[in-house]
């Protein structure tokens, strides 16, 4: 793509040479990428590859070793981003000793969101029937949805979701992904992590991570064609084997990125 100047202003997310050392591991190792506003991007990779660490660096809760992260034109962690970025942690972070509605009302007040927002997100995550239940007595998947609903309260411009669909049944997963697509269509940028490769096909763009590095930055179709695979799981295996053997990497197929 040549006409880069007049397109949209700044990217929603710009990460440059980010490195994070946690304990003795380089959890994120020289990672750079940009996300355009209004895109739905999947961050996929095996357990321990650094997805959570990368996401924490984006939302500004992670002490980083080097590199820069810019969201919506502001440095990560800037106070001006606090009501514009929504983050769902991998482990649901809501109060188990409050009801679903009490949790949402509290976080809505903190975010300055209205009480209609509470009803809206309850419907979004299909928890209207459980609004009066204690969160501590919900199932794991229900609790995860309360945590997700909390991040949707403030209608943020950027949503960082750490494995939001883990442990959910296929129907619910489908309805959440269609919600993510609706949000992206309305201009929200979403970065969604998963270690279930099947979820790759639901994203517009994929960042594949391994050992703290971005192995490939591609589209679902591009990933399949460049690895000559039928499904995403074997595509990822092929990618890793290629990485191990020749360090050749995979061309950023399908996408018009440089």
């Amino acid at each position, binding site marked *: 793509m040549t006409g880069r100047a007049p397109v949209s202003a700044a990217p929603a997310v710009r990460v440059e040479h980010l490195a994070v050392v946690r304990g003795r591991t380089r959890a994120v190792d020289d990672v750079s990428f940009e996300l355009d506003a209004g895109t739905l991007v999947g961050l996929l990779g095996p357990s321990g590859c650094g997805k959570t660490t990368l996401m924490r660096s984006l939302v*500004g809760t992670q002490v980083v070793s080097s590199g820069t992260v810019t969201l919506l034109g502001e440095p990560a962690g800037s106070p001006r981003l606090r009501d514009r970025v929504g983050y769902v942690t991998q482990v649901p972070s809501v*109060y188990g*000793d*409050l009801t679903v509605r009490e949790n949402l009302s509290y976080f809505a007040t903190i975010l300055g969101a209205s009480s209609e927002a509470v009803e809206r997100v309850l419907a979004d995550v299909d928890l209207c029937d459980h609004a009066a239940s204690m969160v501590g007595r919900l199932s794991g998947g229900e609790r995860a949805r309360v945590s997700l609903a909390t991040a949707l309260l403030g209608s943020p411009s950027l949503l960082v979701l750490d494995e939001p669909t883990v442990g959910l049944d296929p129907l619910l997963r489908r309805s959440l992904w269609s919600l993510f697509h609706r949000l992206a269509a309305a201009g929200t940028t979403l970065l969604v992590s998963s270690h279930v490769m099947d979820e790759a096909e639901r994203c517009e763009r994929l960042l594949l991570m391994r050992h703290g590095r971005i192995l490939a930055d591609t589209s679902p179709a591009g990933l399949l064609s460049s690895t000559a695979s039928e499904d995403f799981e074997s595509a990822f295996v092929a990618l890793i084997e290629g990485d191990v053997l020749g360090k050749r990497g995979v061309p950023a197929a399908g996408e018009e990125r440089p």
Partner: protein
Amino acid sequence: MIWRRMRATAGRVLRQLRHDPRTVALLVAVPAVLMGLLAWILRGRSHDFDTFGPQLLGIFPLIVMFLVTSVATLRERTGGTLERLLTMPMRKADFVLGYAIAFGLAAIVQALVVSGLCFGPYGMTVRGEAWLVVVVAVLDALLGTALGLSVSALATTEFQAVQFMPAFILPQLLLSGIIVPRPELPTVLHWVSYLLPMSYAVDATQQLSTHAAVTTQFLMDVIVVGGFLVAALALGATTLRRRTP
């Protein structure tokens, strides 16, 4: 309203307490029973309960609130809710003061019930104003909350948090003048006792026990305890980290 988030936090903590009626019952019943036990132990020993009663009336709430707050805030730290709040437009002061208000209200209920029992059925008397004993008890409970908030930053598990009670509170208790009057302590310990908030908390109730009028020393004690309270809250706020390794 600027303090909207602080009030919401206080309301949320109180709602959590309401969903846990057993904790609320313990909060009130434990000091009530302990004071009753003390009254029984000291029955017939002339004015002993009038001496020890008011002092312990301030110390029990401090200990209870210290424990409750340090466990509550540790849960927020380890459960990810604190991290989530700090990625939202939440000031650290909103969080700390929200907790102080919620547990302060709980402390008022606790102090009213327990001192009602002490001055009523247990037969405790003080020369000074009884309501000032209640004020000091609430102030001590708030101090316990503030100390619990800052100390919980040092703990990474609930086991550790619970151990901080004997580590931080019992030495203060030993040096506060309850066991040996502070001027009779070994010189170094006497100096150290000046640095500990509980010395002033205990002295304030002693002043109320022994003087009919409000003494300047009582006022000084209250001001110093208030100063420790503000300092501990500020320290608690600085222990809240938006970025962690």
